[in-house]
């Protein structure tokens, strides 16, 4: 019974094949289960009152009028939460101030106490019977805040006499770190034939998953249950327990359950615990009723973590042949007012890990300051530190190529780590296990038809357009240094194999990839496999971030599946009255070797107590993975408007072994569009007083469907990862990291060479000496039409760096 008849077809759904994702049938029919889709009876609606000032002293909060309004159940302030024993969120830590003492961030209260430090900070919360009642009552909460002077960027925050964000960070420097060898770097620069120096701005970005954050908290069998849109359910549970352990009935992990259903995009932004999560959970505990908070988009811009925001003075020393002798980079990271631990670590440590990328550069000196400002916190956003580092280095290489009058690909080739140098330890102490960077470069040049560029440039010029070409060859670090996962397998009598994992789906198709790995082992059709995630009662772990899930959780899924097959063998031996050694398994069936005696996997499960066969298994990678790529982009610029269009994009990627070809292509190309977004259009803008000017999709330009659609994407599987059992390397962030420098280098290339290829109108500008040549290396993102149009006329925004 239950013997699926199409087992012979199962091989088509295993790893290495493009399959229809198991997630999709529900999602295309509106049957997804995102947090806000769950509406328990009697659900209350929570709405926040937020600071409208970037910096200010709270004199009073009058809640009586709101409290008396129809439908209002509760109004909370920071004082109420403190009185109830709610603790501030766990502080960021682990780094040092410039004087060597431990960093000392401001307390992050779930609702502000005494002082507000950025626009949008939660000041009070209203809980009501309806969305409309909550909105009306929130408007009736009277908050008296005395505005104080604010600083909205690192330059202003570091200026002499700047207002202090927090007394624990003198001069607004929260933490500082140096890497490398300062003296050796000075010596290398002294003997260098060529020195390049560029100001580099990695502007602030809004991650912007299309599903805004949402939290539903309720009491289930006396226990706090929190359903939310998160990449890290276990981490959220720990954070909630930290904040609420003083409140009865949320004292320990056992008293709190976190559930996650479908997640409408994460991109790193949904890794942290947020103040809103804590307040919603507290309200449910206090009121003993279901409480829902659904973020509006403006709240996402105001208080969800932002990404990037790093200013750098980047310098490269080279010998006469284009060999890099040393890098010296001084950076200032604006980590916001109430920083996250990730936001600080990303800039002080994670970005630096890849600062020398795929190049054999031995000598570096990096100095990075984490600077407090009156803005929202930064945190993880797709790439998290690696985009900043790779962008900086790839801009330097293009400038160096011009300085030495070398081909942009050739100068990179001369500096690449050779295969015989692997495993290679970079000056940050990070060891790359596998890769063949020159082989990727060669394939990239062919895929992009590097040699044919001059003809295409001439063709564009014929049409009155400036064409540019940019390249980025690079690697990145993945895994989050959380390299172990476990998976539980449950084979049920109703014909399903359930795999439970603590990693978290958020659109990346991880369930399908796990299912394909399970199909490899079980040899059953993929429809038989179910992947369960997002329940801290079932599985606990780091969650999904840093492109770690496949090579940790996938490896565990494989091992656990193999264990399950083995676990079934003695059971089958019993059922078939044969010796265990004679039991073989294939395609959903155990059989006795050399006979036609056998029993189906699911029939065997049915004969077990409880009707299931259980097994679990784990896997641990021994190191991070180092996916890498060669991305080449061509752009066309209309000199009349400055509008830049990506017109060609070729990439060759080494992500080790490919499990799901369709999915990884989607990751690289979708990721590249996010990287193009940083290059061309996205920008979080605060004014000098710390007011957020880009607080909706009307002002924050997300890439639209009218962008580039013609990606050429290839994978080279010849260099499997050597430090995990799957041989896979993380793929989630690669496209984003490669696209930004490839696109910007292409635009700079177009502007630098405008004299040679430009139509008449621009040539006239160039005769004044403006807008052309290496002055274009001053370009800073985003390269909006206006920025490019001004650059063509010789006007560049001053890249202001601190000091």
């Amino acid at each position, binding site marked *: 019974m239950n013997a699926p008849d199409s087992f012979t077809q199962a091989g088509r759904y295993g790893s290495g094949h493009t399959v229809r994702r198991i997630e999709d049938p529900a999602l295309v029919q509106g049957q997804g289960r995102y947090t806000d889709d769950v509406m328990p009876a009697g659900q209350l609606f929570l709405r926040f009152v937020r600071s409208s000032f970037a910096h200010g002293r709270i004199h009073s909060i009058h809640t009586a009028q709101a409290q008396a309004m129809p439908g209002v159940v509760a109004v909370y302030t920071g004082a109420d939460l403190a009185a109830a024993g709610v603790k501030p969120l766990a502080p960021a830590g682990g780094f040092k101030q410039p004087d060597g003492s431990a960093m000392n961030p401001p307390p992050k209260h779930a609702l502000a106490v005494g002082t507000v430090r950025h626009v949008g900070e939660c000041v009070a919360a209203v809980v009501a019977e309806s969305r409309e009642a909550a909105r009306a009552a929130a408007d009736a909460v009277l908050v008296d805040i005395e505005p104080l002077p604010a600083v909205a960027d690192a330059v202003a925050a570091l200026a002499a006499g700047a207002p202090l964000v927090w007394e624990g960070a003198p001069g607004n420097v929260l933490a500082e770190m140096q890497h490398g060898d300062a003296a050796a770097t000075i010596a290398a620069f002294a003997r260098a034939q060529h020195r390049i120096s560029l100001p580099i701005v990695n502007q602030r970005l809004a991650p912007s998953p299309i599903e805004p954050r949402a939290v539903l908290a309720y009491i289930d069998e006396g226990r706090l249950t929190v359903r939310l849109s998160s990449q890290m359910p276990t981490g959220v549970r720990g954070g909630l327990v930290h904040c609420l352990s003083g409140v009865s009935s949320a004292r320990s992990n056992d008293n709190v359950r976190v559930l996650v259903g479908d997640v409408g995009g994460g991109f790193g932004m949904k890794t942290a615990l947020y103040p809103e999560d804590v307040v919603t959970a507290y309200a449910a505990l206090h009121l003993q009723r279901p409480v829902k908070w659904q973020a509006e988009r403006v709240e996402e811009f105001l208080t969800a973590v932002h990404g990037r925001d790093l200013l750098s003075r980047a310098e490269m020393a080279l010998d006469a042949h284009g060999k890099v002798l040393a890098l010296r980079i001084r950076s200032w990271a604006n980590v916001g007012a109430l920083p996250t631990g990730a936001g600080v670590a990303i800039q002080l440590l994670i970005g630096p890990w890849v600062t020398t990328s795929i190049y054999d550069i031995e000598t570096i000196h990096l100095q990075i300051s984490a600077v407090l400002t009156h803005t929202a916190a930064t945190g993880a956003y797709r790439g998290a530190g690696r985009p900043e580092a790779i962008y900086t280095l790839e801009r330097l290489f293009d400038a160096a190529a011009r300085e030495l009058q070398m081909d942009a690909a050739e100068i990179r080739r001369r500096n690449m780590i050779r295969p015989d140098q692997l495993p290679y330890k970079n000056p940050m102490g990070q060891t790359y296990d596998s890769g063949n960077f020159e082989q990727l470069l060669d394939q990239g040049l062919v895929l992009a038809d590097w040699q044919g560029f001059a003809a295409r440039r001439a063709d564009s010029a014929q049409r009155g357009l400036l064409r540019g070409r940019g390249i980025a060859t690079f690697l990145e670090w993945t895994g989050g240094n959380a390299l172990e996962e476990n998976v539980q397998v449950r084979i049920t009598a109703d014909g399903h194999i359930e795999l439970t994992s603590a990693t978290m789906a*958020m659109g990346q198709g991880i369930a399908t990839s796990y299912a394909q790995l399970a199909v490899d082992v079980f040899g059953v059709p993929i429809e038989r496999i179910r992947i369960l995630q997002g329940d801290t009662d079932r599985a606990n772990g780091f969650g999904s971030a840093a492109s770690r899930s496949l090579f940790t959780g996938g490896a565990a899924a494989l091992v656990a599946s193999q264990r399950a097959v083995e676990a079934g063998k003695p059971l089958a031996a019993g059922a078939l009255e044969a010796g265990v050694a004679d039991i073989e398994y294939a395609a959903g069936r155990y059989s006795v070797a050399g006979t036609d005696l056998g029993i189906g996997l699911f029939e065997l499960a049915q004969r077990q107590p409880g009707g299931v066969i259980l097994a679990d298994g784990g896997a641990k990678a021994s190191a991070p993975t180092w996916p890498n790529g060669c991305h080449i982009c061509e752009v066309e610029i209309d000199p009349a408007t400055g509008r830049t269009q990506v017109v060609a994009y070729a990439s060759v990627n080494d992500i080790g072994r490919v499990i799901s070809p369709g999915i990884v292509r989607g990751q690289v190309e979708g990721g590249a569009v996010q990287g193009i977004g940083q290059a061309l259009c996205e920008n979080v803008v605060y004014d000098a007083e710390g007011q957020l000017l880009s607080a*909706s999709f009307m002002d924050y330009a997300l890439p639209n469907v009218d962008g580039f659609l013609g990606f050429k994407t290839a994978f080279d599987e010849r260099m499997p990862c050597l430090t995990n059992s799957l041989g896979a390397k993380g793929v989630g962030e690669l496209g984003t990291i490669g696209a930004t420098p490839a696109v910007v280098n292409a635009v700079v290339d177009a502007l630098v060479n405008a004299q040679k290829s430009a139509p008449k109108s621009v040539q006239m500008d160039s005769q004044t000496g403006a807008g052309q040549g290496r002055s274009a290396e001053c370009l800073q993102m985003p390269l909006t039409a206006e920025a490019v149009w001004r650059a063509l006329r010789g006007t560049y925004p001053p890249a202001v760096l601190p000091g």
Partner: protein
Amino acid sequence: MSTTYVNGRSIPAATQPNTLLVHWLRDALGLTGTHLGCDTAQCGACTVLLDGLAVKSCSVLAVQASGRHVTTVEGLARPDGTLHPVQDAFIACHGLQCGFCTPGMLMSTVALLAQNPRPSEADVVQALEGNLCRCTGYVNIVAAVHQAAATLRQEAATLQQESTTLSQETA
């Protein structure tokens, strides 16, 4: 009492004057496939068909749907559960990742293909200009629209052929 026709069913029309169509569909009718992503009519996750035209249900009051036909993503599949060709094409082309924008993308596509069975790439881009996706980079979405268009054209041709044959036989 006035009626709104939702996915072919007659429903007593909404009466609350300040309820948005998207909230009425989600909260009152439990049709949670229609998503709310931006509140300012940029992202298009809330797109539904109102008398066949794609509208953003975050920008329409529920009472405005009185007497009219609303189609949501839940109304696309055939009653026997067979997916609509647009739904099938999005799966086949990997035109969705997290799936949150997908219902809106599907509804905008259905509206486009009803008007224009053979859209050019520029037509597709124009039709989806009001729908944001953060995951896919749009590449596979546009491919899915073209694949769905081809399937629908083929279905239409088959239908026409059948009816021609039928009328010839009758004659």
